[in-house]
Structures are given as C-alpha cells and as structure tokens.
C-alpha cells in the first residue's frame, strides 16, 4: 500500500537532507516567499514544498506524472483537501494511544499495536470510502492507482478479518505455544499455537492432551510474575513483530500519503495566491533531455508578483541550443528579476509545478545553482572577494555537468581586469563541462570577450532601454555595450548629467 503521488513507484524520502546550497538558492531566487505562500501556515506543507522543489526531477515523464496529479488537485481541490485531512486523522489516532517508553517487550508492543491498528481500521475504511465516491473524477495515473489500491486492499471482508484477529490477539482464553529444548535445556523455537477444536471446552477454556503437569505461580512471587511475562513474550515474539510491523506500515502509509498530499496542498495555495494577483500561469512543457533548450513568453518572477501583489512584466526568451546567456544593460533594468524568473521557472518545472509564464518550454537540468553578488559578507571572516571566490569554489565542488548556473555580477568585488579574468576562466570551464550558464554582468571586459568569440551558442541579451533612458524591464537580444547606463540613474537621482569614463577595451 503506497501513495506514490510524487514519484512513479517511489515514496517521498522525507528524511532526505536539503541540498548544501539551499540557503543560497532560497536567498538568491526568493524561494522563501514562494514557500510561505504555499504553506499558508501549515508547517508540513512548508517542509514538503522545500524538500520537493529542491530535489529536481530530470525525466520529462516524471514531470508530467506530477503535473497530472496537480491538474487533478486543481480540478478537485475539495476532495484532495479531504484526503489530506483523513490522513491526518490516522496520524492523530496513533498519537492518542499511550506509548510506554520503558518497554519494548513483545507483549506490550503487541498490545499497543493492536490498539492503534483497531483505530487505523476505521480511518482506512473512511479513506476507501472517499475513494469509492470520487475516483471517477480523477484522471491522473497516480490518483487512479491510489484509489484502486484502496478499493482492492481494504475491502470490507478484509478489514473485518483483521478486526477479528485484533480481538483474538488479546488472548482472553489463554496462550498456547509449542517449545523445544535448546543447548542448555532452555526453551527454544517457541511457536504460538491455535488450540485444537476438541480441546476447547464449553467454557471456552483450552485444554491439552493428557498427561499434563502444571505449576501455579504463588501469590506475591513478583519475580515469578515477571518471568511468566517473559515466557509469554517468547511465544508472542513473531506475532508481535508482524503486528507491530503492520502497524508501522500503515502509519508510514498515512505519513507518506499526508506528506505527498501536502505538496498538492501547497500548489493549490500558491495557485490561489497568484490567481488573486492576476499573474499568468501555465504548465510548462519539459523537453526531452539532451542539449539545452529554453523558450518562453511572458516569463516572470512569481516571487516578485507575490511580494508586490501585482502582476509583473514577463520576458521573452528563445535560447534553444544555447550554452551561455550573457545579460548586460541598464541598471535597474530588470536583469536580476529576469535571472530569478528563469531560475524559479526551471525549479518549479522540475518540481512538476506550473510556472509564471504564458508559455514555457525547457529541457530539465541537473540542478540549478546560483552565484549572486552579496551585499555584505555577513560572516566577516573573509573579505568580500574571498567570500565570492569560496562560494564559487563550493559550487565547483558540487555542480554536475548538465546543470544550470545563474551568475549575478560575479567577481565584481575586485577590479574589472582581475574580476573578468577569473570570470572568463570560471565560465569557460563551466560551459566546457556542459553547464549552461546565465551570466548577468556589468564587466564589459568580460561580456565583450564572449561577444568577440562569435560563438553561435552564446546568446546576448540586454535590458531594454529606450532613447531617453526609460526602462521597459524586458530583455531583448543585443550585444554588450561598454556602459551600464549608470549615468541615467545618476542623472535621475542627482538631477544632472555626469561625464562617464570610457571603459578600457583591452
């Protein structure tokens, strides 16, 4: 019995550790805002959203599998929320039965397992009934399989057999077991036995074939009672194990079901929030793996939309077959927003989610990595330049070929000649290893050196700027220019023009 709402034929591994760069990714791409919109106050949803979005799917089929689950959820939000609730009842039932922390003796394990399973049977029945009622409205293979499994595995006949055994396992009429002698004449091979029909008396008492010999533990022999308990345990060991494992299995089914549904809940919440803002959303088309492909219309940063509570301007990009995207142009022209939008869309697509775009088609990447300029070195241990370098070095330790690397003004904390020299080495190495790099830079020396290569697979975008310095926040194709239009902003702030130095063109 498995939920398998997130992975085809596989559970969500809730114990999985978040990737090493979770902090950087969240800060650089504004993921925290997205996650909190998904969670809407539910900690489990928050935790699962984080886990799932940072464990990207790379197989387009797997992405579609999840998209179908989410389509079902968007179509039947009420039923999905009900299932989430029932799974929660199962977990609450387990917590309601007292657990002794001081004993793991079989008889006690058995007792607790029987008590909890008794409650579980009720929850399982409810789950099956929800399925029976609503299954026809669900189209995704994941939900269809889940409902079919519930109907098949949890039939009324089966659940009542289980309940009978749960009653019998309290052994009200005595415990019978067979035993052999071990190396030291101690009892071994204890096997729990079902008394023969002819040996069950009218009073439901059990008997044995004659001759028999008996011993009764005297009153007040406390050690004797303990020893008797241990003897019972030996007979109950296997059964207690089986029942405890069953209890554990059903419990973990409830846990998995609830966790996996939590992701749907998160997506429902996010979808609702973005719909309210009026941000256009679509299910992306994951392209078959191989070369890099990315084309989009209206690609926008949903995090910004959530923060500003209004729809944000989308960009267009056609980057199929590209290995390096160099973004230059006006300050405050939306370059960082573009970079965040591209990163978020990639991550959301590979989580099986909808993305903030009118159309988004891209190939899955082996992970998204970010290297954004930091305002300050908050640790104060190393200089800013050292901090940048060591962050890039960490990326070098972890990034696999086939990943997507988003760089926002790398190595700008040193002079341009040094910074662009290191930048060239790093970016060329990444690109040559099959990492697709999107680079936002002000360093003309760096961007121009890529332009000069005339490499077809390099795409050059510029933050759009009209003749009078107005900004559209859109990216258009264009070669790097030797200025970042800082003078525009200077002029706006100071109200006067500034003669800008001509950059070196070495």
């Amino acid at each position, binding site marked *: *019995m*498995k939920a398998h709402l997130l992975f085809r034929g596989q559970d969500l591994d809730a114990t999985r550790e978040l990737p090493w760069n979770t902090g950087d990714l969240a800060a650089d791409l504004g993921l925290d805002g997205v996650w909190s919109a998904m969670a809407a106050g539910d900690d489990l949803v928050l935790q699962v959203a984080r886990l799932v979005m940072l464990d990207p799917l790379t197989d387009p089929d797997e992405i579609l599998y999840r998209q179908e689950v989410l389509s079902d959820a968007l179509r039947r939000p009420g039923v999905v929320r009900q299932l989430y609730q029932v799974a929660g009842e199962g977990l609450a039932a387990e917590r309601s039965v007292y657990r002794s922390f001081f004993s793991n*003796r079989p008889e006690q394990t058995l007792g607790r397992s029987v008590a909890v399973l008794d409650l579980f049977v009720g929850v399982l029945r409810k789950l099956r009934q929800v399925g029976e009622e609503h299954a026809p409205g669900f189209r995704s293979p994941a939900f269809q399989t889940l409902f079919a499994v519930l109907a098949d595995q949890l039939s009324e006949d089966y659940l009542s057999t289980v309940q009978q*055994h749960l009653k019998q396992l309290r052994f009200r009429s*005595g415990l*019978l*077991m*067979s*035993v*052999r*002698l071990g*190396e*030291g*004449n*101690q*009892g071994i091979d204890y*096997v*729990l*036995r*079902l008394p*023969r029909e002819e040996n069950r008396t009218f009073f439901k008492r059990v008997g*044995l*074939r004659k001759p*028999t*010999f*008996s*011993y*009764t*533990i005297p009153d007040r022999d406390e050690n*004797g*009672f303990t*020893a*008797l308990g*241990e*003897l019972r*345990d030996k*007979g109950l*060991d*296997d*059964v*207690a194990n*089986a029942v405890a*494992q*069953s209890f554990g*299995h059903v419990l*973990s089914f409830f846990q998995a079901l609830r966790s996996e549904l939590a992701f749907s809940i998160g997506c429902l919440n996010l979808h609702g929030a973005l719909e309210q803002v009026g941000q256009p959303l679509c299910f992306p088309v994951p392209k078959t793996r191989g070369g890099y492909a990315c084309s989009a219309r209206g690609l926008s940063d949903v995090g910004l939309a959530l923060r500003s509570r209004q729809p944000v301007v989308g960009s267009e990009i056609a980057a199929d077959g590209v290995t390096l995207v160099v973004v230059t142009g006006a300050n405050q022209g939306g370059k960082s927003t573009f970079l965040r939008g591209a990163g978020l869309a990639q991550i959301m697509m590979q989580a099986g989610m909808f993305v903030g775009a009118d159309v988004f088609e891209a190939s899955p990447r082996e992970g998204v990595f970010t290297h954004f300029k930091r305002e300050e070195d908050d640790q104060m241990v190393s200089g800013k330049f050292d901090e940048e*370098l*060591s962050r890039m*070095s960490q990326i*070098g330790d972890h990034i*696999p*070929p086939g990943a997507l690397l988003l760089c926002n003004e790398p190595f700008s904390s040193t*002079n341009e*000649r*040094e*910074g662009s020299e*290191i930048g060239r*080495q790093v970016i060329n*190495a*990444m690109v040559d290893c099959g990492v697709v790099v999107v680079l936002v830079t002000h360093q003309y020396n760096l961007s121009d050196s890529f332009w000069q290569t005339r490499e077809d697979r390099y795409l050059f975008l510029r933050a759009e700027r009209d003749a009078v310095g107005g900004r559209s926040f859109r990216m258009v194709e264009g070669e790097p220019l030797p200025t970042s239009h800082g003078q525009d902003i200077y002029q706006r702030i100071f109200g006067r023009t500034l003669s800008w130095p001509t950059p070196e063109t070495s």
Partner: protein
Amino acid sequence: MSDDVTATMPGESDEPPTGRPAGSEPPSVSVLWSTPDGAPPGPDVAAAECIHDLNLDQVLAGIIAGRDEYGLAEFFTRPVRYVADVHHRQEVFRDLEQDAVRAALEQFATSMRDARAQSGSARKRHYLWQSERWFLGAANAYCAAAARLTEQLAKAPLTSRGLTDLTAYLERYVGSSAFLSLRSEALDLVDRLGQVHYDLLIRGVKITAGHYDEEADYSKVVLRTFERFQQGAVKDHRIQHNPSVGINHVEAKVLELVASLNPDLFGALASFYQIREDFIDPVILRFDREMQFYFAYLSFLVPIRAAGLPICYPVVSSDSKQVRAAAAYDLALADKLTRSRETVVLNDFHLDGPERILVVSGPNQGGKTTLARTFGQLAYLASLGCPVPGREVQMPLPDRILTHFEKEENLDTASGKLEDELIPIRDIIAHASTNSVIILNEMFNSTTVLDALALGRVVLTQMSDLDCVGVCVTFIDELSRLSEKTVSMVSTVDPDDPTVRTLTLVRQPADGRAYAIAIAEKYGLTYAALKARVAS
C-alpha cells in the same frame, strides 16, 4: 637469574638434557618443547627489562590480546636456550603454513574453547537439569572436535616432530574404547533431547505442560493476514533471546514439568553427568594451550604480511656469532605504521668475521634507535623460535639480551644522572656472557663529549673482551673506530626536502593577471582546475 647458573650455561650443546631413560614411552607430547617433559630446567632469560626497552611489551600485548584464558605471557617471556627447541618450533610454524593444517587446528581450538565455555557454564548453573545439559553439550563438542582433528591431521603431510607425535597420540586416543563410549553416549542423548517437543498453556498464573499435539501454527495465520500491511517494513521488533543466559526459576519449574513428561530421558542425562566428570584428556588440554602460542603469533603477523612486509625463519646458531639481517624492521613500529597505512623503512646490517658491535651514529630522528630495537627484537624473537621481521636473518642464540635505554630522569634519587646511568651499565657488563646480546642506546647523552667518549670506550672495550654481539647507539662517532670488532653505521637525511617552500624573493615583472590567477588557483578556480573538478 643468579650468576653461577649463567656461568654453567651449556652453550656448546644444541640438545637439552632429558633425564629420561632411553626407549621408555614418552609421558606426554609437546608442540613447544623438544623434550616432551616441557621446558628444561634452567634459568629464564632476564626478559622483563629488555622486553620493555625493545618495545616488545607492545608487541607481546598485541599477540596475547584476547587469549587471556590460555596464560600465554609465560610462553612469550621465556626464550629457549637450546637450538633444538628453536627448530622444534620453527618446524611447527612451517607445518602451519599449510592452509588445511592451520584451518583444522584453528577449528579445533575454537571447538575446545566452546566446549570449555559450555562445561564452565554447566558448573555455574543454578538448576541441575540445565547444568547437566550444558555438560553433555561440552562432552559432545569435545568428542566431535577430537575425532575431526585426528582425521584431518592423519591425512596431512606433516613434517614437524611436534605435530606428528601429536597425531600418533590422537590416533591411539580416539580409537580407545573409553573415548568411543563417551562419544556414542553423548551423541545419543543429544539426539533424544533434540526431539523433545512440548506444549505450554498459560492461563492467568498457571502454566500447564503437555506433549505437543500438532496444533496449528497461529503465528503463520496472523503473519499471512497482516502480510499486505508489512511491505517495506524494515524495523524488526523481535527480542533476541540469549540462550547462554541462565534460566529463571519459572523456566526451571517448566523444565521440571518437561522432565516429568520424559522421565527416562532425563534419568539418563542425570547419570551421564555423574559418571563422566573429567572427560578432557590431559595431553589434549596441554596441546590446545600450546598451539595458541603459534596462533597468537601468526595472527599478529597477518596485517604485517598484508602490508607486504617480509617475514622469515631466522637461522639460529649457538656456535657462530655471525649476524645477518636483510630488509629487517622494528615489529612494534611496523604494527603501528601499518595501522595508519604509513611506510615502514627496511634496514640491512651484518656482523662478519671478527665484527661484534654495530656502532650507530648520525643525525637525530634518523632511525638510529629503531635500528637498535630491530637488532634486539630479531635476537629475542628468534630465540622464541618464531619467524622474525626481515627477509633474511641469521642470529646467534643468546643466553641473555641485555639492554640499556635512556630513562626519564628520576627526581627521587639524590644521585646525578650520570651515576644513574652508570650503575645499570655496570650491571649489564657484570651479567653478560660471551653468548649475550647487548643493546646500548644513547649512552651517556647527559655528560660532556669528553666524558662520554672516555666512558663509552671503557664499556665497548669490555664488550669486546667478552666477545659478545650487540649494538651501541651514540652521538660520538669515534667509538665506531675503536677496534676491528666495531662497525660504523650512520643515519642519513634526504638533502632535498620537497615539502618546504622557498621564501626567497626574486625579481620578476609585476603582472595583475598573474595575481588574479594566483588567487583563482588558491580556490581551485582556474580553467584547468575547475574543469577537472566539475567533469569528475
């Protein structure tokens, strides 16, 4: 260790005295001593001091670790005095090189250990029915082990006298009617007890026992019902019941009920326990203990050999003072270094013709002390009859190994350091004979060069007069040129140390690019470095 006994050491004879009339049946068999009576009379070599100085205490501790029950320290602190005993042991070691022989003997040792544990366990039991059963198990295990070992040794191509004598003894023993009846009786009882199958019915505080009546297995029914809920379940909640733990009084009562159900069988068990008290043969008992000497030593060598270090059988002689060691090393150091996967340095040395003393000098940390220890260890281990750490080794069989290693300064004595040092050295010379091995490490370090030279010359001259072999580690290289008996060895250092970086500044054109690249290099971010990292 008194002087008069040392003086009467029969160093010329290779054979120990037996004191036994010719042609009489050997009373016993020993795999350690060439005379079956065991260690011949005579003094133990003064071992404690040299064991510590040569770091052999670490080695011996490692060798005997985990074998406390055999009392092996006695064997390893008692070097032999006759070459015949060295050969006796080397022969056994060589027989043990055959995997089949070693495996058979190790298996026997394990069985004996189990049997002893079971019979020891029997004695500790509070409840008679249980003691009797443990005792029976021990007897049964012992019989099976003895019979199996006899069979295995009989078909093995043994060459050592120790093991061929033992095999002959075993063959007589397992064919004896006493052994055969013990074995068949034990087997029969074990078999019958194994067939006992009973039911227990527990209701409230009452336990009823009866014969098993083929009732259905309820566990199976439950397991089948709950099967579909057990997919992927990994946690095992079962309690591990330890059968070697004694039974409690309720289980003892249950056992009484079972005995009442099977009165004949339990009667037979009781009489077996009473009649067969000391079933282990004393010769086998001794052999089992003595074999541990070999197993302990060989198992200590396993990681050493695995590290590729050479081990050889030394040529040991009582009439030649020639010393020859090729690719030899300090076993204690090798044990430590192989654990941390570090390299062990091998050394060659020899004393030919009139040469008697290696005088080792040279820079510190150069391995001088290690060489001195190696020399002493080879002599000691060879005189235990053991294989030694080296590719090819020849050593005289010493009557004593006398060592002097610098001690921590003793604050309690009023005497000066030089005096503290002179007294033990005087004692060494006083106790040494021409057949001794003397190892002097860092002698007279605390005094002036002139004093040290003068005193060292006196000591070495006395050693030369005794004509015994040894090593002297000293900072005074003049001592190596004392006479034809002294041979100089020096420690050396590699003149090019590649790990130390130069701090020299040289004039070169300043270049910002080079600086950036230097920084990138520091972080592994140059094109080549990063590409190699990401692609891997």
